[in-house]
């Protein structure tokens, strides 16, 4: 019994030793080639960011609190490139970001990106890269509307590199943080082009009448169970016949989509709108067309009241 166990152990030990020897032999041949390949690949990437640089030296990054910076290279007399790894929507994203010595962002090169085709991959397109390159290390960078997770992760990584770079070069003014993208407006819609909603209540204060009115939004029009119209507070000056202000009282459309219209830029369009002019119109928020139109319905109800 013991003899048999010993036989097995010895047999496996011999096989494993032979295997180990074979591996050590092959590794001895290939290790230097693999190391050389890795350096060459890294160098090719760095060369894209700093085409004029002739030599690159690794830079030790010690005080990176974010832990996102994986490596850094000084391009002699030109700037510094950081290799950053962040967690994207589906998988880690690796990229190189290059800062010139004066704090200008000179290049962003995405090395590894496995996020959704056509959505997350937008960060590896001129749409995003052109919004990064040319800024300085103190400017904020906007995320991509519709690819917030992926672009937000990349911006976070860039900011980590900025913090290190700014500290190293003594540049004040922070990183500028993450900037939400500006609203994108879609088609114009005339304020009399939609059916009126209903006025819930109104109160008069001198020349200004304050209406609480609702307008059917996306969920009502699509027939969702228990859907309710969006409710707005609309102030109209009855002497000048102009809109004073419009704002949300209650948003009953899809969270995260209908919310988009609750922005300064959108409401600003209503201020001073001439209610006697049949051609008065506002621009809908792209991606939240129905909710934008519900405002128009409520406004018409208020005007016609």
């Amino acid at each position, binding site marked *: 019994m013991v003899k048999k166990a010993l036989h097995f152990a010895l*047999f496996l030990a011999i*096989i494993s030793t032979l*295997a180990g020897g074979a591996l050590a032999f092959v590794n001895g041949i290939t290790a230097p080639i693999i190391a050389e*390949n890795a350096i060459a690949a890294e160098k090719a990437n760095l060369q894209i960011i700093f085409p004029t640089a002739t030599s690159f030296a690794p830079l030790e990054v010690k005080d990176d609190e974010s832990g996102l910076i994986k490596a850094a290279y000084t391009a002699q007399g030109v700037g510094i490139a950081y290799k950053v790894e962040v967690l994207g929507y589906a998988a880690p994203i690796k990229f190189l970001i290059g800062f010139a010595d004066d704090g200008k962002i000179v290049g962003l090169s995405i090395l590894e990106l496995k996020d959704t085709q056509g959505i997350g991959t937008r960060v590896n397109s001129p749409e995003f890269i052109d919004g990064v390159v040319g800024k300085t290390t103190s400017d904020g960078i906007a995320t991509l509307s519709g690819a917030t997770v992926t672009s937000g992760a990349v911006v976070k990584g860039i900011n980590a590199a900025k913090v290190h770079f700014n500290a190293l070069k003594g540049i004040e003014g922070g990183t500028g943080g993450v900037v939400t993208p500006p609203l994108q407006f879609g088609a114009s819609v005339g304020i009399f082009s939609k059916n009126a909603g209903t006025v819930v209540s109104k109160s008069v204060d001198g020349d200004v009448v304050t209406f609480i009115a609702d307008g059917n939004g996306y969920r009502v029009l699509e027939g969702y169970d228990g859907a309710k119209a969006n409710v707005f507070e609309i102030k109209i000056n009855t002497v000048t016949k102009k809109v004073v202000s419009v704002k949300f009282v209650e948003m009953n459309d899809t969270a995260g989509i209908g919310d988009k219209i609750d922005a300064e830029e959108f409401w600003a369009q209503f201020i001073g709108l001439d209610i006697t002019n049949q051609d008065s119109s506002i621009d809908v928020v792209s991606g939240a067309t129905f909710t934008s139109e519900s405002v128009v319905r409520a406004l018409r109800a208020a005007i016609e009241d």
Partner: protein
Amino acid sequence: MNRLDNFKAGFIRENPVFALYLGLCSVLAISTTLNNAVGMGAAVIAVLTLSNVIIAAMRKITPDEIRIPVYIVVIATLVKIAELLIQAYATDLYVALGVFIPLIVVNCIILGRAEAFASKNTILDSAIDGIGMGLGYTVGLILISVIRQVLSSGIVNFSNPFTQQMIFEVRLIPQNFVIAMFSQPTGAFLTFAVIAAGVEYLRTRPAKKTKEVK
């Protein structure tokens, strides 16, 4: 056993991919380009043939009770060697195949042939079986890859994995008519299912009736 039959078995009758449904993990995952298919196929043929030969050579001294650990050590060593060689000499292929090179270790074709064939047959027969099965796997992989590559990108191309030099590139479908879905996992399953159904028909169709002689 007739050696030619033994060699041919891997293509249709016992094609590891379409008839035995072995090693599908890598087949579905990396069959996006012809380059990947040829690279993966070559690695599998090399590992499968060598592991079959080594295991057949040791079949008389390997104790039956511990044969599986022994096979695994042999296969893992060969795969690691293949991985190191690919990483050193064909870096692009290494990047494209990624984790699926080390996963050859657990590719059931290899352990399956070791257990089912190499442990009972001579070195020469095992080598022939390894090459045949490996070629069967490669042909299946190339078939799926070409279909997926053409449908998803419209192009079929092949480049030298050692120098990245393009050997040929043909556009078969205009850019506007490609179906990008075929580069995704969905496309892999669809392509595989259709081909597997075809192969199943070939394997099981009733033999032509011979004339009865009274």
